[in-house]
């Protein structure tokens, strides 16, 4: 009896959380003139999705978002791994250094976006995916460093000592032992970085142009002076959520997986 009550409660909670998403999915599948219909599912069509790709630049933006999100992670991760390792293992610049890294995260993004724009303009990288990748890599770097620092601190130093007495250099111990062992952590950090970039709006809005707009910017542009194209927005949102759903599955797997199980004790 208690179990049933518990499950009913959980079902209700799930419904509350999922309701907006389900409503968006519903709206994306309705013909545009029925978007605001009070009925649950008066009709079903894929027209909105087709229109999204044929009448707007959503496809291009989607590709841009994928490139920028992947690119920024690929650029940032090696730096984050090395810096995080240095902070975790050596007394590099102490606590002050660790927190200084976080300084940029303390500022409101608006405070950084204009200098970033000015910088990119000087080197001619506004309105370019390369510029976006560099900026996102830089903005996400502190966050990734902190996540990876935590992972590296969790790896027993005995492992590296063993590798060093076994004949590896400090770099060899990092490359051959620490990196493979912390792969789940690095993957999790990568996925988090991807999600951060994928969702980011302000930098994308200021630094991109029509050719290089990312998904959030493209979705925002569907709110025109003639009103919000709610059906297309819904379709766009559904597609935008898709990579996040996949990513969160990955994160779960990596984080749940034991990190160093069996190596010590």
């Amino acid at each position: 009896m208690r179990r049933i009550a518990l499950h009913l409660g959980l079902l209700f909670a799930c419904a509350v959380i999922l309701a907006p998403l389900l409503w968006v999915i519903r709206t994306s599948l309705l013909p545009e003139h029925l978007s605001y219909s009070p009925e649950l599912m008066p009709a079903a069509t894929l027209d909105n999705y087709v229109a999204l790709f044929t009448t707007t630049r959503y496809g291009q933006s989607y590709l841009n978002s994928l490139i920028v999100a992947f690119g920024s992670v690929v650029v940032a991760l090696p730096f984050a791994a090395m810096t995080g390792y240095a902070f975790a293992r050596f007394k590099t610049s102490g606590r002050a250094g660790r927190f200084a890294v976080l300084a940029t995260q303390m500022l409101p993004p608006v405070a950084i976006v204009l200098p970033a724009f000015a910088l990119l303009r000087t080197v001619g990288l506004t309105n370019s995916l390369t510029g976006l990748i560099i900026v996102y890599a830089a903005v996400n770097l502190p966050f990734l460093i902190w996540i990876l620092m935590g992972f590296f601190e969790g790896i027993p130093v005995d492992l590296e000592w063993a590798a060093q007495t076994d004949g590896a250099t400090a770099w060899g111990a990092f490359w051959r032992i620490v990196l493979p062992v912390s792969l789940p952590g690095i993957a999790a950090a990568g996925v988090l970085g991807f999600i951060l970039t994928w969702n980011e709006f302000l930098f994308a809005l200021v630094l991109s142009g029509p050719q290089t707009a990312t998904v959030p910017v493209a979705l925002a542009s569907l709110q025109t002076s003639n009103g919000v194209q709610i059906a297309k927005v819904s379709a766009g949102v559904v597609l935008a959520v898709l990579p996040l759903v996949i990513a969160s599955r990955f994160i779960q797997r990596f984080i749940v997986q034991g990190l160093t199980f069996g190596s010590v004790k």
Partner: protein
Amino acid sequence: MSSIELDHVSKLYANGAYGVRDVDLSIGEGEFVIFLGPSGCGKSTTLRMIAGLEGITSGDLRIGGRSVNNVAPRDRNIAVVFQSYALYPHMSVRDNMGFGLKMRGVARSVIEEKIRDAAGLLGLTPYLDRKPAALSGGQRQRVALGRAIVRDPVAFLLDEPLSNLDAQLRAEMRLELVKLHRRLGRTIVHVTHDQVEAMTMGDRICIMREGRMIQVGKPLEVYADPVDTFVARFLATPPMNLLPARLTGQGDGLVVSGDGFTVEVPDMHRAAYAGLAGREVIFGLRPEDLHEAPQPGFSRIEVTVVAMESLGVENILVGQIGTGGTAGKPLELSARLSRHFTAPVGARVPLYLDPRPMHLFDPETTRAFPRPSLRLVTN
């Protein structure tokens, strides 16, 4: 070739605390040496300095006659077995064991052969393709040893390698390590806080405390002649009984007396202790030197039983003697008695004390007053 010399080696931390202080020790080629001490005494730090994993603040460290103060761990050709085993979790047993050779650029076929030999020696052949996570504690321990053996290092440094094993496995591995040492003939430095390991495994024990090496010697020598009360208490369970007392001259003889006991100093020690008459001392006697039956020369004491521990092979009696005097707390001592001896808690029983192995310590410095070694006398 594989001797290890520590020449006044110290480790000073940035906060001004000493990790290791002025350790002076020469370990001969093929010797099995035990570093024994409580946690935080600097024994593991000393081991890591020998391995090169920890820097040396002052002094000189030589391996095979060559100063290695500034030589990287990988160039010292020394193998370390860690307390945690530190197996590489993402590698199979085979790759774990072969890693060191691979790093040194040894040919694949040679590596394969050495792994096969070591695995055979340690009974690991069926597990070569498993990951460490799929092994039991004892098997992981063997892999860690195997990883050290295949490299054929000049010395093995073992950092409490048995402390994570259960009692039975530990006893087995203790024997195996000793056999392995005989077989390989390599220098072994074994760090432990386990007195049984210390007594049974090594050629020499080095007892450390607060970063200093306070006594170095053969296990039985250290057991028979501890240099101070710390060593006296540390090396056995139950530890040596230490009772505050006073040494007085009586005619020709000397008498040690304290709250609830009076012991005549045996002839063999009289000359050594004669100069101490009239002094406060700490009287030290091991629990096995208290007996339930009288013999000529033994001193009788009355003990109130506080606890009886029956170990099967023997019974340990914990008792109180004396009245407590002004301090108000009676002295406690323990005695190893035969398994046939029992007494209820609270009973007063007579015990007979063999004074020949007695020790006297200085209450101020805790150092032992020198006396002829009993082992030399009885030989």
